[in-house]
Each structure stands twice: as structure tokens, then as C-alpha cells.
């Protein structure tokens, strides 16, 4: 009985070590940005961005005047991560302050975006143009999507 317990204890230790290792690995992965997953997300995101977003926010993410806010160096994007995930699909209206500049042009959402596509666009805009957020996984988007509410 006692030996059995000891066995379980050592097993647990090994397991938790493994867990820690994987945790570190996954943390690393999102920062090194070299995994296949990240690259696939990023590349798909780039194409979706060109299709749905770049007309207004521009290919280089700089936005246009005080009409369309920039995504390159945007304090709004950093402070409102979950809201950004939601507004891609649901759109947003009313005043918005980005880097101290007030914007007020309604953005229509793209309701047909899937969670995966949203995650791909998010991965792209949060890592292009000097942004360095790391991979934004579809599972993360799924969870946030459930809290979006609204439309």
C-alpha cells in the first residue's frame, strides 16, 4: 500500500514536471513566432486582412487621416484586446479614441467570419507592423466570442 502511494507520488512529480515543461514550451511558442501554426495563422490572416480590412485601415496599417484609425502602434488595440476580437465580427459605432485622436466612423463588422478566421486576422494585426503579441489561438477567440453579446 505504502509503496503504491510512493509510486503515485513519483508519477505525479513526473507529470507535473512534464506539464510545466509543456506550459513553458507553449509560452515560448507564442513569443518566438516561428511555429508552423503561427505562420499559417499569420499568412491566412494577411489575406483576410487584405480582403476585409485594408481598404480603410490601409495595407500598412496606418489608417487614413482621422477617418480610419491605425492598427500599427495602436494603444486602443493593446488596451481593448477582447473588444477588438468582438468588433471584427460585430462592427462598432460611435466615438473611439486611438493614440489620443478621436475617431467617429462606423465600422461595419464582417458577420461571416468564423472563429478561426477571426483568430487569423487577430494574429496578423497583432503581429504585423512591429506589433508583437504572438499567436492568438482559435480557442481563445472562441471563449471571447461567447462573451461578445450584442448582435
Amino acid at each position, binding site marked *: 500500500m505504502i509503496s503504491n502511494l510512493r509510486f503515485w507520488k513519483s508519477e505525479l512529480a513526473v507529470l507535473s514536471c512534464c506539464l510545466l515543461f509543456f506550459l513553458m514550451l507553449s509560452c515560448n511558442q507564442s513569443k518566438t513566432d516561428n511555429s508552423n501554426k503561427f505562420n499559417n495563422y499569420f499568412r491566412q490572416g494577411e489575406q483576410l486582412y487584405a480582403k476585409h480590412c485594408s*481598404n480603410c485601415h*490601409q495595407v500598412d496599417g496606418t489608417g*487614413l*487621416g*482621422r*477617418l*480610419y484609425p491605425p492598427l500599427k502602434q495602436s494603444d486602443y488595440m493593446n488596451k481593448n484586446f477582447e473588444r477588438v476580437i468582438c468588433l471584427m465580427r460585430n462592427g462598432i459605432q460611435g466615438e473611439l479614441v486611438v493614440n489620443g485622436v478621436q475617431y*467617429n466612423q462606423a465600422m461595419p463588422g464582417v458577420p461571416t467570419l468564423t472563429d478561426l478566421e477571426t483568430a487569423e486576422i487577430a494574429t496578423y494585426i497583432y503581429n504585423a507592423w512591429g506589433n508583437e503579441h504572438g499567436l492568438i489561438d482559435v480557442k481563445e477567440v472562441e471563449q471571447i466570442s461567447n462573451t461578445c453579446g450584442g448582435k
Partner: protein
Amino acid sequence: MKKILNLTALALLLLNCTSKKETEKLPILGYREVVAKEVEGQKVIDTVYHTIADFQFVNQDSVVVTNETFAGKIYIADFFFTSCRTICPIMKTQMLRVYEAIQDMPDVAILSHTIDPEYDTVALLRDFADRLGVTGNKWHFVTGEQDKIYDIAQTSYFATAMVDKTEPDGFIHSGAFLLIDKERRIRGKYDGTVEDDVNRLIKDIERLRKEYNP
């Protein structure tokens, strides 16, 4: 050696062609009519070109804008609406480049017509121009009666503009930029969503100005 000579000859030929093209006059677009008329008792044959019809709209400063506003001026015309998310933002990005290029040209202006005058009020156009960074009276954003705007788009500028509920934004319209000379004639048509085409427009504005000041 022969090869080099040939290449040089080709290069010279190409150079010659391009420089010739630069100095050539821009074409006059649209239909034309040859008419016989009497001048001082003599019968003369004259060519009548297609011209932009009379118009009267209101710009972002609530100022009435007519053909007179552009008398003695070259101008660039286009059709858009502020809530458009498809081609208009690209057109406005490109027109902004034109706007910057003509800053020091007192004889060149821009005329952007909204094709959604119900939504695009003077106040909204004012705000739109401000946010785009447009000041002064070089770039007119005009609104007016919808029928009049659609009519002048189609019959004067040969640009498509109409309501279509099946389109994402409810309108179909062309992304064309039109270069109009001081005689109200169309001298060039450019795709306002294509950077290279807008580069061509910027060059053509200079060429057209040279026709008036050789």
C-alpha cells in the same frame, strides 16, 4: 559590339518614344460632332466635343458650386459616399495623393460628388473633409439632388452611379477619376483604386497644364 550598338539604338528609340509621348497633347474623350457653321459669311467646318453639362451643387462649406467655380481651372472629378467601405476608402487614399500633388497649382481643383446625398449632408461632408485633412477650397465635396448627381455622372462624366440594394453598401459606382480641362472636356479617365493609374493622372495634370502654358 554589334549587339551593344543594337541595344543602344533600341534604348534611344525607346527614349525617343517616351519623350515624344510626354509632349503629346492629351486626347479629348467622348463623342464629337463635326458641324458646319457660318462665321462672318463664310462656311467653316468645326468639331464640337463632348463637354460637362451645367451643374449646381453645394459643398462642405455650404457654398454653391457650379461650372463657374471651375472656370479657368482644370479639375478632377469622382463619385463616392462617406459610409462606403468597398472602393471609396481606396479612392480617397489615392485622391489625397492627387490633392497633395496639386497643392501649389492654383489652376487645379478636385470635385468629389456624393452619390448618397440623403445620408451625406453638408455637415457630414464637412466632418469627412476635416478628418481627411482637407482644408481650404481646393477640394470640393458636394451634395445635391440625387437625380441630378446620377444624371451628371452618367451623361457628362460617363461614370456609373446608381442605387443597387443587392450591393453590400446599397450602391454601385465606378472608381473612376476624370480629368476635366478648362473647356469642360474630359481629357483622361483613371482607375482611382489603382496607384499606378493615379500616378499617370498626376503626370497628365502637368501635361494638361503645359497645354495652357507652353
